[in-house]
């Protein structure tokens, strides 16, 4: 079969316009598909609770926005004494934009001791230092995703949501929400925010449990503890919390999935169209090949190979393009102070390539069979 490969490649090279148009069409469709898939994967990663998740978020009951969720900081010891709770970090959240948008800055104010004991160990400090954070009251530890998105460097001062912080450190972490946040001193945020800014009020508590298996049970225990208080709580696993806060985003992305399937259909249609048109033009040419002694199977192979190559070129370009775009720059859709990251891994690249090859082989298969079974002598009579 290798001997026949030049027959396929020569055709593609010597009809450059047709090849280019098909490849570009497939590339655009595949690019779209990959971006939609990456977004969907980002939503799943941010919102699907998986075994081993051990963080609960305690929020004010019936509140959905960081501006309106207010809980007394003195809940902290009461949560801490509930069996199974490992750490409790009170957190004041301040966001630059509460609605869904790209590039939102989320500040998380936490008490210094909780920061050092609980938050810091999740980070690998890549610039600056924890000491610098401790020294300054307006210091911030900036997550790597936020830092790279905003081009933030240690020593910078940066402003968002009406406050200005000093960048004391930049930290790398796998924790999705932490990567996209800037950690400040709790008191600083409480004062600077001013909105309901009396000390002693926080937005939420982040609770780490010692046994992930008991995540739900502990959440219920926390809510039961405060049910009779003036500020009742609603406690959820962190990712479920993100899912609730970012409902709109989740829904839009779910809808966008149709766009992704549509893009795949476009890949299929483009390759099928290119092949079918070509075949109609070349019915006689294939009849000549068969007259020369090429079997139907070989001819069908040539047709399928041509489709597969078009799909591979276009799909490859589209998938690589999407991969490059999303790995050079991390996009993050945020709302209510939570983040959904859109990023691409090698598996996206691979699935895009596989999808385009499979679809283009399918697109070529039907016309290939038709040619292989068509009326040979009749092909010369048209």
């Amino acid at each position, binding site marked *: 079969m290798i*001997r*026949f490969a030049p*027959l396929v490649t*020569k*055709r593609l090279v*010597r*009809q450059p316009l047709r090849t280019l148009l098909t490849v570009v069409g497939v590339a655009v469709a595949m690019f779209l598909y990959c971006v939609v898939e990456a977004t969907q994967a980002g939503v799943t990663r941010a919102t699907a609770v998986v075994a081993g998740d051990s963080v609960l978020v305690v929020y004010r009951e019936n509140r959905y926005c960081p501006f309106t969720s207010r809980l007394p900081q003195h809940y902290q010891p009461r949560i801490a004494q509930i069996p199974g709770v490992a750490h409790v970090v009170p957190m004041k959240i301040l966001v630059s934009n509460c609605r869904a948008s790209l590039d939102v800055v989320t500040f998380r104010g936490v008490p210094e001791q909780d920061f050092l004991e609980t938050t810091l160990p999740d980070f690998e400090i890549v610039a600056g230092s924890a000491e610098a954070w401790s020294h300054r009251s307006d210091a911030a530890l900036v997550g790597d995703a936020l830092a790279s998105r905003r081009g933030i460097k240690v020593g910078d001062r940066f402003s968002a949501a009406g406050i200005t912080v000093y960048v004391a450190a930049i930290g790398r972490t796998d924790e999705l929400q932490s990567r996209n946040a800037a950690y400040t001193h709790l008191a600083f945020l409480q004062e600077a925010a001013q909105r309901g800014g009396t000390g002693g009020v926080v937005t939420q508590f982040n609770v780490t449990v010692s046994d992930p298996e008991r995540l739900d049970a502990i959440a219920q225990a926390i809510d039961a503890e405060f049910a009779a208080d003036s500020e009742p709580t609603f406690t959820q696993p962190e990712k479920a919390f993100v899912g609730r806060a970012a409902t709109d985003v989740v829904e839009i992305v779910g809808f966008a999935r149709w766009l992704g399937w549509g893009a795949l259909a476009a890949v299929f249609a483009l390759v099928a169209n290119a092949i079918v048109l070509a075949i109609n033009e070349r019915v*006689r*040419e294939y*009849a*000549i*090949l*068969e*007259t*020369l*002694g*090429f*079997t*139907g*199977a070989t001819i069908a192979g040539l047709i399928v190979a041509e489709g597969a190559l078009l799909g591979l070129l276009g799909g490859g370009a589209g998938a690589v393009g999407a991969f490059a775009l999303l790995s050079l720059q991390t996009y993050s859709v945020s709302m209510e102070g939570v983040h959904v990251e859109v990023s691409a891994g090698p598996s996206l690249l691979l699935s895009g390539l596989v999808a385009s090859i499979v679809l283009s082989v399918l697109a070529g298969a039907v016309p290939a069979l038709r040619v292989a079974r068509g009326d*040979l*002598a009749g092909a*010369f009579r048209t």
Partner: protein
Amino acid sequence: MSFVECRALERTYTRGDNTITPLRALDLEIEQGTFLALMGPSGSGKTTLLNLLAGIDRPSSGELRIDGQEITTLSRAALARWRSVAVGYVFQLYHLVPVLTAYENVELPLLLHDLSRKERHRRTALTLELVGLADRHDHYPRQLSGGQEQRVAIARALVTDPQLILADEPTGDLDAEAAKGIMTLLAALHRDLGKTLVMVTHDPKTATFADLTLHLEKGRLVSPATVGADAPAEGGA
């Protein structure tokens, strides 16, 4: 045993209620090394017969043996493989592959043979030289004249060295000058290489290049059924 043997060969087409029989109970023997011209009015079944001989069409009934091989029972794929060694076909409209150069068109049938690249090159170049196109290797069909295209097509039919060459009005689309060149070439293949040639033509002048001419009318031969290189000539020559 003759090189080509047709026994009660028949081809019918059914279109709805109509049945067309372009070829009717045809008996024909052709000896090896014969150059046979087939003439007859339009629609008399000339192309149909040629296609049956090439195995690109199948008879509705009858037997057809070529070089001892009964080809009516072969599968479509087996027929293709058989053609790649046994038959060269030349079309009226040349039918070169437009995206391939003259050289690549001629090399095409050799891809089906287990040959080294070097050997393929040797045979391709030799055959192009034989048809007088040694200097046109890299030309695409659209860059060649009709006569040159037909030479390339003849080279392509010849390159695998088949015993049987079939040509359907090979000069039908050419002017007198180019036609003469093509006929001289075909006659030389017959004379120097001993190929068996069956050629369809409308033109009596073209037919004079053949050893023998047979006439088809309404799917029947109107000349003696046995013709051979040393049988008495009936038409033409």
